[in-house]
């Protein structure tokens, strides 16, 4: 019998941050190949950092991504402080959580409303969705703005914030200055709750996998900047042991390195991992909203990540308000960082998952070596695995519908290809 082959090609993957290509090959109604391609060399910034002063790392790495610059700054300052034996506490620590809340709100809302919701409601994009759902899109834009305002105030400006430094901030704020954010945040908290309820009603594909979720875990709080790295399958390590437990592999079809757990394979980072591993440390309001949305603490369906992102947006609004409420202006905006030879490690929770930084510096503070592992390259293998299992369930669909389903499955991860590389072209090929 003649072999029946089909190829799905999507040369350009829409509604992800960056450009990528996905290629899927189907032979005799069986998936025979899945390749998520990333083209650009990801290592440039690591080389670029060598020879620079340790104080420059937060601002240089912030330029890797226009969506999550705060994450890069946070991982950079914590790694440098780790190298210098510093431990920034008190109001400066709170301000770092606050600016991260702003970035989570901005990034999550952009993805929920502009990139992901159109999939569930059957629109090609947010522009077409806005024609029928004007008020909802306007709510999304206003909600995102509440996050922008936090980043703009604490970061000195909205895009590529410049106020973060090793040891703290260049400038800190009075309680009165911070309180200005509260009014919009109270509205945003209500809007985020509405967002949870809105997304919970979407139609979801029936798709669950046995994932290994990896996230930071802190005993007292939902994680942003500190904690141990844990998983639902027994991982529990210090950040300094990251490279002993994870490995990066070059795969031929992608310029971004694939991360895997040594001896464990692919793993899953991001909102669902944080949620599943830290559910009890969400604020009561966020926890209750999640439960009402049908999430009882563990979610294994990546399509429902849009609800989890909404719950985290709600949490970020709630946490931002809590921090502003209890804030006391610190005596000084930063702790002095005195250079010394050393090596520092850090993992923080970027909107899309753990962002690992490691730096070696010499006695004058010059960077000798840098390593950066962004969340999207860690999820890349899991995305491919999802497609291996997901596509066979939908083989009867016409080509365009199947392609859309695959793109939606990728968008579950909100892949930020500008972090993993710059451009990602998605090319889904069906043979």
């Amino acid at each position, binding site marked *: 019998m003649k072999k029946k082959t089909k190829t799905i090609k999507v040369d350009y993957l829409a509604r992800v941050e960056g*450009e990528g290509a996905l290629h899927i090959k189907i032979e005799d109604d069986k998936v025979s190949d899945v390749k998520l391609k990333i083209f650009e060399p990801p290592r440039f910034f690591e080389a670029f950092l060598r020879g620079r002063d340790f104080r420059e790392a937060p601002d240089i790495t912030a330029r890797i991504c226009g*969506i999550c610059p705060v994450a890069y700054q946070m991982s950079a300052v914590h790694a440098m402080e780790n190298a210098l034996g510093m431990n920034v506490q008190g109001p400066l620590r709170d301000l770092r959580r606050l600016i991260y809340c702003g970035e989570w709100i901005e990034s999550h809302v952009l993805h929920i409303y502009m990139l992901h919701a159109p999939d569930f409601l059957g629109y090609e994009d947010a522009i077409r969705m806005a024609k029928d759902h004007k008020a909802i899109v306007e709510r999304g834009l206003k909600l995102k703005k509440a996050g*922008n305002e936090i980043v703009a105030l604490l970061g000195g400006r909205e*895009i590529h914030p410049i106020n973060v430094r090793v040891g703290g901030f260049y400038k800190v704020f009075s309680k009165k200055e911070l309180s200005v954010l509260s009014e919009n945040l109270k509205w945003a908290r209500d809007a985020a709750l509405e967002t949870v309820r809105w997304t919970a009603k979407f139609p979801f594909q029936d798709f669950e996998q046995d994932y290994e979720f990896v996230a930071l875990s802190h005993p007292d709080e939902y994680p942003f900047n500190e904690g141990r790295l844990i998983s639902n399958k027994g991982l529990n390590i210090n950040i300094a042991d990251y490279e002993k437990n994870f490995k990066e592999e070059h795969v031929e079809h992608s310029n971004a390195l694939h991360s895997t757990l040594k001896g464990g394979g692919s793993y899953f980072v991001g909102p669902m991992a944080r949620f599943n591993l830290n559910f009890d440390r969400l604020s009561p309001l966020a926890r209750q909203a999640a439960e009402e949305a049908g999430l009882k603490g563990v979610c294994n369906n990546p399509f429902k990540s849009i609800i989890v992102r909404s719950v985290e947006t709600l949490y970020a609004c709630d946490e931002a308000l809590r921090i502003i409420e209890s804030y006391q202006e610190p005596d000084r905006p930063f702790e002095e960082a005195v250079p010394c030879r050393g090596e520092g490690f850090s993992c923080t929770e970027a909107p899309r998952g753990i962002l690992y930084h490691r730096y070696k510096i010499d006695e004058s503070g010059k960077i000798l070596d840098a390593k950066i592992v962004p969340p999207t390259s860690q999820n890349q293998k899991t995305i491919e695995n999802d497609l291996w299992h997901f596509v066979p369930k939908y083989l009867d669909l016409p080509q365009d519908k199947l392609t859309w389903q695959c793109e939606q499955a990728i968008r579950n991860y909100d892949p930020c290809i500008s972090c993993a590389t710059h451009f990602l072209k998605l090319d889904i090929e069906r043979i």
Partner: protein
Amino acid sequence: MNVSNNTPQILIIGIGNLYRCDDAVGILIARKLKDIESDRIKVLEQSGEGTSLMEAWKGYDHVWIIDAVSSGALLGSIHRLDASKESIPSKYFSCSSHNFGVAEAIELARTLGQLPEQLQLYGVEGKNFQPGEILSPEVEQAMELITGEMMQQLSSSL
């Protein structure tokens, strides 16, 4: 913001990434124009993320956006588009790593009735978007041309 007689009426937005060679051109032009900021003229740098652009131009009547483009035209060509009158092809400003970028922001704003009265786009045809801090000489020439042209327009409008 609300524009009145004593607040800026003209907004200039330079878009790009300083560490992506030709992609920096929008930001570099914005920096050259920064000195002419006044009560009526505001100059901003942006990464090109669409919803932030929509937020930035709120309240302004006249908005100029400068970005690098990659359309296959001659390196250093200057594209001028009047977005208040014509739709912008979504792939046109795709140098940015953002999927919800300049073109999407313009079309969503058009749908929501949030487009400025005048929205002029200046695209500089780039070629090298690799990591780095060097502009192609042709892009540098285009940068000088646009800066001069804008300076002239702004001084005649004052």
